[in-house]
């Protein structure tokens, strides 16, 4: 019996598989530019509202108050000189007038006479005395009166003096007051002027800020309008916002999405290597004609062959169906490959 043989089969792999990877650099560059540009824009928007400007206005206000402070002190009454001490007028007592001691003989002879005289004299004396007394009294009264007059005059003078002084004081006071008032007014005016100037400056700042704000607001408005437009576009795309659409549009959108889904599903040849739980996000860009211009498998838990099958499916589905309402068209599509087993 012959012994059959077969030759061993040897196959050697001699070259390595090579793949090309591109886009990385270009995408990174674009992203960097967008970020830089974004930062710049944000910076310029916030410049006008810089807190430094507000601080400088506040500083001026504080300064104005400092200037006003001395004026406020000037408003206080000036310290008065000590008033002259007028001596108190002293009333002098009137001295008693004494009677004359004449000769006794004469006194006898004249005793009678004298007596008479005395009587007379006494009477006279008494008269005189009375007279003197009266005179004295009168004198005293007069003196008193004079004294009183003098005191009164003094008093009056004093009074007048004090009145004059008071008047002078009052005048001075008034003058001081006027001066103070004047100065105050001046200060006030200066302050007011300064304040006004500051106000004007502040106003100017404010106006500038307002202008900048307005510009920013306009810019923001533009951005927000764009955002709103984008939002609207997204809403148009999003099922969850379908109620925001008119019923007719929602229907068209649903049909558009169904057509897209059907087209891609028919084009996707599922490799046997697809495991349960496959989930791949694919970014697709298309021309208004539906021609697929780019397919990027973003997040994907599948192997290279499955990714390739997905990429191929989208290209194979090209040109993609178009919506009946052109408003529903979107250049960018998100495809989620998640087979339900």
């Amino acid at each position, binding site marked *: 019996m012959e012994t059959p043989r077969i030759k061993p089969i040897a196959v050697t792999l001699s070259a390595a598989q090579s793949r090309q990877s591109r886009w990385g650099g270009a995408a990174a560059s674009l992203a960097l530019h967008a970020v830089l540009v974004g930062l710049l824009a944000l910076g310029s928007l916030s410049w006008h509202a810089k807190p430094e400007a507000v601080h400088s206005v506040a500083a001026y206000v504080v300064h104005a108050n400092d200037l006003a402070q001395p004026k406020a002190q000037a408003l206080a009454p000036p310290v008065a000189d000590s008033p002259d001490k007028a001596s108190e007028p002293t009333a002098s007592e009137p001295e008693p007038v004494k009677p004359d001691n004449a000769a006794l003989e004469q006194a006898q002879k004249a005793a009678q006479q004298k007596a008479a005289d005395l009587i007379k004299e006494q009477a006279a004396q008494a008269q005189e005395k009375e007279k003197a007394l009266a005179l004295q009294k009168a004198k005293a009264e007069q003196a008193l009166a004079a004294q009183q007059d003098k005191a009164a005059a003094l008093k009056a003078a004093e009074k007048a003096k004090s009145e004059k002084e008071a008047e002078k004081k009052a005048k001075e006071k008034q003058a001081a007051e006027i001066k103070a008032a004047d100065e105050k007014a001046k200060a006030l005016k200066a302050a007011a002027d300064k304040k006004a100037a500051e106000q004007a400056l502040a106003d100017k700042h404010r106006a500038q800020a307002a202008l900048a704000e307005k510009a920013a607001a306009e810019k923001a408005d533009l951005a927000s309008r764009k955002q709103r437009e984008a939002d609207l576009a997204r809403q148009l795309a999003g099922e969850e916002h379908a109620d925001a659409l008119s019923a007719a549009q929602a229907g068209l959108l649903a049909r558009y999405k169904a057509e897209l889904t059907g087209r891609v599903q028919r084009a996707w040849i599922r490799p046997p290597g697809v495991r349960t739980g496959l989930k791949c996000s694919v970014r697709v860009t298309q021309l208004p004609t539906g021609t697929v211009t780019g397919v990027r498998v973003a997040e994907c838990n599948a192997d290279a062959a499955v990714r390739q099958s997905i990429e191929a499916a989208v290209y194979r589905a090209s040109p993609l169906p178009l919506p009946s309402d052109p408003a529903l068209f979107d250049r960018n*599509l998100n495809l989620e490959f998640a087979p339900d087993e």
Partner: protein
Amino acid sequence: MNELFVRSLSRRWSLLSGASLMLLLLAALPARADLSIQITQGVTAPIAIAVVPFAQSQGPWPVDAASVIEADLARSGRFAPLAHGSFLQSPSTASSIDFASWRMVKVDYLVIGRQVIGTANTPAVEFELYSVLTGARLLGLSLPAGNTNVRAAAHRAADLIYENIIGVKGAFATRIAYVLVEGQIPNRRYRLIVADADGENTHVVAESREPLMSPAWSPDGTSLAYVSFESRFSAIYVQTLATGERHRVAAREGINGAPAWSPDGLKLAFTGSTRDGNVDVYVCTVSSGQIQRITDDPAIDTEPVWTVDGRGLYFTSDRSGRPQIYLLSPLVAGQKPARVTFEGPYNARARVSSDGSQLAVITQDQGAYRLAAVDAKSGQGRVITRGTLDLSPSFAPNGQSLIYSTRERGRGVLATVSVDGSISSRLSAPEGDIRDPAWSPF
């Protein structure tokens, strides 16, 4: 290519950048995530590919590698090669590819190549795989090919193309063994044949006037175990393919059949019988010839096959009255095995997929014998062939398909079917009746 152009252009713009561009970018950013669509299904359809005949330097060569690759891909059922009549061009170098023309004829992938005589006078097959859709070069290799090895190089190329696109290792550069029966009694001849997986490049391994049966590949692919009745009684032989050297490992009295290699290649499980005719499963150590009886049941226990981890044996038993698949794991003699299949009255001759998740069995379906794929855990199965007598399933090493024998115009032929039953093909075969195919390991 278009994308590249657009990208580089926009980069230039950004370098020139102005506020307007910045605003455009800012405005464009929020609008990026747009219409979202869920893809929950795909199709099982062949992928459109074009394999352009390779340029042959100092030709013509005896074998056209491109046609071998093309046939491999087509037979897998996963690819639909474009008919050459539809080609608008036949490039053999990258620079001469006009992708637009290939897009026009709706192919997704393009294979070009050259059969060259390299330095040191060594022939080689160079091939390149391109995505027509993106223009990307997916593969580019040079495979050494002796004058008789262009076919092997082409199968290898097909494997790599298959793996790149399908994501599963190709099994084109593998082999099959089968028994070819020719002539009528008393001139009947049995031949054990080894061929390429595409049925070409056949070699006769053994030849006998008595039956040859049940070839089984050793796990390393160097040897075949098979049953021969050359001594009028059944015996199990192991033959090394490269040298033809062989030795008899089991020749006990009674039945010695259905050998199956353990995953470590050290043992063979087989069907044996006792003197009183009780058929059971035995295990033989190849190096020593030592034999151990594993099952001991009055019913027939036969057709053993190892679990992937080598710790258990599936086998067919009619202990329940009808043949069903049982599993004995761990492999302890005398233990009670667990029944695996319950669907239908007949499930026999199990084979295990390379990952152990599936069994292929012969099942009775609408009065015919057909193949079923059975989930190894649940025992749930589904019929995957449509023949009347589909027998001897054997898994491809990549687990994607099975080779089996079926009847065609009264004779046995080889067929393949994908494990899900969706793709089937027939292998052309010479005259005669083909039985017992076995697919080699990688």
